[in-house]
């Protein structure tokens, strides 16, 4: 291709109307099953609609993410499906793509700017967090000491979820947070830190974690301490593993973000936009999360809930 | 003390004491350096020669005592300060940068620059070339020093010192790796310098050589200045007596050979030079060695003695030829295999190939023979200690004990440790490469006694040497090597110094 083809006006017209072409899917590390499901769903959908696809991970590194977006631009992708690496760090690259005439569809995590991305389809984390927190409070009978395990401090959702949890729980006077540690979304770190925390607070009644991997780490630690029946654990994401834990009664609840659903929606809207130049939807779309507890856990699939 | 010439000294050290921890390295030494003269400093290993020189060159500070330069008292802040004041030194241990070119090495720390920012390479190369010419070593100034032979490297050290155009030039064993012709060149240069009024301080364990160049002789013993004289008033015997406290003829007491059956036979051995494959370091060597023999391998630097010995020891692989031990064909194999067969090498470079600096004396000794002390998979400390202590007695290693750090031993004793390590493998053939390099006469004598003793026990002793006197005095046979070939062989007593040197090609040009 020659050098000036990247200029926005032209590639819009060339891009318009017919399907086919490339859809770039960029997600956080796919060694986390959640993002894997997300990426797989998007790719599957895109193929189904007759697009080439490329799936890549930005490893939660904003710099790598911007490189991946550059790469998508170089390849004249028709659209980018992005689960971003930072609400602020992503703004620049997305604008770059927009200027290159490539629509960006954000999934799962939003960015702190509007009018740049064509769509921001995110699970409503704070609503989900509140759901989870309510169930957690219920399971604990509205009282008792608990521990919160936070995700990577630098991650948007870590903050949103923690806030959601605390908004609800702080309403309950008899519930007391006795410890709070970041386990960086990591299972083994959650395990180790939970074990150590238990040393000081054996008398806790619950653990609420920023995601399921950490929750499962905590479960392992609690099982080891033989407190499984006493300590209630709640997670977030609705991962299959967490589902099993809920079935076994090791966790009281997790909150399903319909990752697969969101990804598919994003691709469909992208397809719409490529063909018609518009999505027919508002930029910000918050998809409600679904609470998973022993009642409905049976229907839990891979980050999707079969009714 | 004998008369010191009337001229006023360029440099003078008064009542120098130097203490390292509890080592009293120098005891109240008064030392004067005369302009235009060569002062030779003799002394055993550890006598304090290098330490005294380091103090003159500003590398070490005297514990007590003062220095005078050109009549004024000075305090040298460091080697750089000394150099700037006209005192420069050629270190005993090479201090070069193998990764840098000859020119860079010469100008390190005193780079030339026209604009005060970038280095003036052209000027540096030009001057470097001049100096190398002067030393009759026409090397390209851009050659990385790392690829030079030891001898060539030492010449670079000398060139470095010349570059600084010092008024006082200290040479601490500058010739330990130089061939005779190279030494002659050096001596010529020294004469030129003295003619210009430069004061030279010269240290060497090579007696004849040192006396040849000396104007004035100073002897250190155990950190004290024990004797001083004009060179023409003294001879080697005098020096040795002052150094060691024994007379020289007691030193070489070689026993009459009683040679037994043939042990080692080498036929038409060819070895490619490890450095450059275009050159054969060993070029068709054949030899026969018998039990109870002490055989010298004399030759110049680059003659290929090291390669020959290292091939026998299994470090280098022969390109062709065969080696037989007790008539048995020796298969190509690792150094370990050769040691098991009874072929053990005492390497040329003690520090680099002989000793593990992080280990104690005892651990160094037993390293090659550990297998002998293994009982049920574990090394038996008792068996090991027993063997080590016995050997330390036999070989008279002077150390605080088996646990003393190897670095704490004097050069001679370190060499004895390496020798002990070899002996502990109970070898059939003992190969020694320059076993006396950098070792004082006393220690030398002891080493040779040991070699003779081993031969008596029915071992074969083959050692490489660069000192004719050693070749003539010690062994039962002398093999002269040149350009990778054995060019001549002498029986004990049948050779003269001249014949040997001619054979080696030393007296050419």
């Amino acid at each position, binding site marked *: 291709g020659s050098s000036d083809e990247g200029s926005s006006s032209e590639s819009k017209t060339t891009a318009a109307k017919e399907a086919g072409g490339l859809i770039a899917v960029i997600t956080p590390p*796919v*060694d*986390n*099953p959640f993002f894997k499901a997300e990426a797989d769903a998007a790719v599957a959908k895109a193929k189904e609609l007759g697009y080439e696809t490329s799936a890549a991970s930005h490893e939660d590194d904003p710099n790598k993410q911007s490189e991946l977006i550059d790469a998508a631009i170089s390849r004249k992708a028709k659209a980018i499906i992005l689960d971003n690496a930072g609400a602020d760090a992503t703004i620049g690259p997305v604008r770059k793509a927009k200027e290159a005439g490539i629509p960006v569809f954000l999934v799962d995590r939003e960015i702190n700017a509007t009018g740049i991305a064509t769509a921001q389809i995110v699970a409503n984390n704070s609503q989900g967090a509140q759901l989870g927190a309510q169930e957690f409070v219920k399971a604990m009978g509205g009282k008792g000491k608990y521990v919160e395990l936070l995700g990577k*401090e630098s991650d948007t959702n870590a903050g949103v979820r923690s806030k959601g949890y605390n908004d609800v729980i702080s309403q309950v006077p008899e519930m007391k947070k006795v*410890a709070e*540690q970041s386990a960086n979304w990591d*299972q083994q770190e959650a395990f*180790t*830190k939970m*074990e*150590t*925390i238990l*040393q*000081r607070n054996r008398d806790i009644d619950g653990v609420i974690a920023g995601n399921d*991997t950490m929750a*499962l*780490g905590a479960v*392992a630690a609690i099982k080891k301490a033989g407190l499984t029946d006493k300590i209630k654990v709640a997670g977030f994401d609705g991962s299959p593993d967490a589902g*099993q834990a809920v079935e076994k009664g090791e966790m009281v609840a997790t909150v399903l973000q319909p990752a697969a659903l969101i990804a598919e929606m994003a691709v469909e809207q992208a397809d719409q936009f490529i063909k018609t130049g518009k999505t027919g939807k508002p930029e910000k779309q918050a998809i409600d999360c679904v609470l998973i507890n022993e009642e409905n856990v049976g229907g839990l699939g891979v980050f999707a809930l079969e009714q | 003390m004998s008369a010191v010439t009337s001229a006023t000294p360029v440099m003078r050290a008064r009542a120098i004491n130097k203490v390292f*921890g*509890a*080592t*009293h390295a120098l005891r109240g030494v008064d030392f004067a350096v005369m302009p235009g003269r060569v002062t030779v400093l003799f002394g*055993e290993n*550890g006598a304090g020669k290098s330490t005294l020189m380091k103090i003159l060159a500003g590398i070490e500070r005297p514990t007590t005592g003062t220095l005078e330069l050109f009549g004024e008292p000075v305090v040298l802040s460091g080697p750089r300060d000394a150099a700037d004041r006209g005192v420069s030194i050629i270190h005993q241990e090479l201090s070069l940068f193998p990764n840098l070119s000859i020119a860079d090495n010469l100008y390190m720390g005193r780079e030339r620059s026209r604009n005060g920012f970038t280095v003036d390479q052209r000027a540096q190369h030009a001057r470097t070339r001049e100096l190398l010419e002067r030393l009759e070593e026409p090397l390209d100034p851009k050659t990385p020093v790392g690829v030079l032979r030891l001898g060539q490297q030492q010449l670079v050290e000398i060139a470095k010192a010349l570059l600084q155009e010092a008024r006082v030039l200290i040479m601490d064993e500058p010739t330990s790796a130089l061939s005779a012709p190279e030494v002659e060149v050096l001596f010529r240069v020294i004469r030129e310098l003295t003619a210009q009024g430069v004061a030279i301080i010269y240290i060497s364990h090579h007696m004849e050589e040192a006396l040849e160049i000396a104007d004035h002789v100073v002897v250190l*013993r*155990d950190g004290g200045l024990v004797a001083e004289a004009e060179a023409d008033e003294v001879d080697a015997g005098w020096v040795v007596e002052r150094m*060691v*406290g*024994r007379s020289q003829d007691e030193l070489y007491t070689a026993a009459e050979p009683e040679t037994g059956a043939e042990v080692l036979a080498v036929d038409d051995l060819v070895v490619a030079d490890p450095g450059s494959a275009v050159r054969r370091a060993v070029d068709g060597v054949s030899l026969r060695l018998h039990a109870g023999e002490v055989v010298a391998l004399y030759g110049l630097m680059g003659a290929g003695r090291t390669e020959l010995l290292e091939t026998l*020891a299994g*470090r280098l692989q022969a390109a062709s030829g065969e080696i037989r031990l007790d008539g048995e064909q020796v298969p190509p194999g*690792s150094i*370990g295999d*050769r040691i*098991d067969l009874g072929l053990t*090498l005492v390497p040329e470079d003690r520090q680099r*190939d*002989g000793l593990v*600096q*992080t*280990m104690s004396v005892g651990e160094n000794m037993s*390293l*090659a023979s550990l297998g002998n002390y*293994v009982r049920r*998979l*574990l*090394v038996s400390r008792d068996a090991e200690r027993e063997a080590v202590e016995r050997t330390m007695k036999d070989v008279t290693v*002077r150390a*605080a*004990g088996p*646990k*003393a*750090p190897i*670095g*704490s*031993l004097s050069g*001679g004793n370190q060499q004895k440790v390496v020798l002990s*390590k070899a002996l502990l493998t109970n070898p059939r053939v003992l190969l020694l490469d320059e076993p006396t390099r950098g070792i004082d006469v006393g220690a030398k004598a002891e080493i040779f006694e040991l070699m003779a003793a081993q031969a008596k026990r029915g071992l074969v002793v083959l050692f490489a040497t660069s000192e004719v006197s050693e070749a003539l005095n010690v062994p039962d046979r002398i093999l002269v090597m040149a350009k990778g070939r054995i060019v001549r062989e002498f029986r004990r007593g049948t050779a003269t110094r001249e014949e040997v040197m001619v054979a080696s090609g030393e007296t050419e040009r």
Partner: protein
Amino acid sequence: MSNDTSTTAGPPTGSEAVRDLPSTSEGRRLKVINLVLELRAFIALFVLIVVFSLLSDAYFTWDNLITMTRHVAINALLAIGMLMVILKGGIDLSVGSIVGLAGVVAGVLLEGLRVDVLNVVIYPPVWAVVVLALMVGAGVGWINGTLVSRFNVAPFIATLGMLYVARGVALLISDGKTYPNLGGSEQLGNTGFDWLGGGEILGIPVSILIMVLFAVAAIVLTRKTAFGRWIYAIGGNERAAELAGVPVRKAKTRVYMISGVCAAMAGLIIASELTSAAPQAGETFELNAIAAVVIGGTSLMGGRGNVRGALIGAFVIGFLADGLVILGVSTFWQIVIKGSVIILAVILDQSQQRIQGRAAQMAAAKSVTPSGPAPASA
């Protein structure tokens, strides 16, 4: 890397030398200082424990000590292997990835190995799973060793490469997924994997016993066997070792294999504790292991150091980290403190060497003086 003389640790065998010190007053004083410094790491650990115990009564309880020790066990295992590699003058950056890989291998095997040609699924018994996982660790180590000893690749690079390769392979095998239930099942007769990380013998967790086992083995290996002596010799002066007939290449390769096995063992314990194996387990563990070894007073130049030191190093790091968690110190401060401790520990170590160096020289003095001439005796 780093040919700074600064790192070449004075007259190294100082510690021995000191025992032969002349009994001058200075000698005695040095002995004392030196003893203190020898015990430096111990003391650091002791101080650490005291401080935390004062700050939280939950710290110095049998339970917590056991728990913390279990956490330490992981890093301790890595540190033991790392120590040997560093002793011989190398370094192993791939241990973290081996941790992940070993876990994944265990995961694959426990959840059933599908052999398509026969289309059957094989469920090896747990002991076989463990052995196989350890062999994989040894295998990666063998590659490291071969690259270093045969292809003359700098250890830092060879193992850096394997850091990526091993991790990548773990991710490919597992397709990035976590193996959720390593509990095995009765009818398949492959239960009991969780015993490694969860079981106890006489109230002592198995993982701790494994650490002790490896530690003892390592101490014997380094102190009592010829192989151990070879490692020190190679680290001290490889050329000299070679000339002494030490099978340098074989020894080097073995060392990396040992490190690989230790790492794999750590990986198994983690997987067992969580009864689930994640391919990304063990990231950046290599740094902790190196830190432990170095805090233990081992020279990165090789040839100097011991197992005891490495273990203490691991305990210092682990007990510190857990203590900070118990106190609820923020993650950020935890990072800063960890870094500072590493540096401080090593600065201390330097001063130790300097003083031991002095001591060694004094010993030297003693040994040298007699070598001076004694005219009378002649």
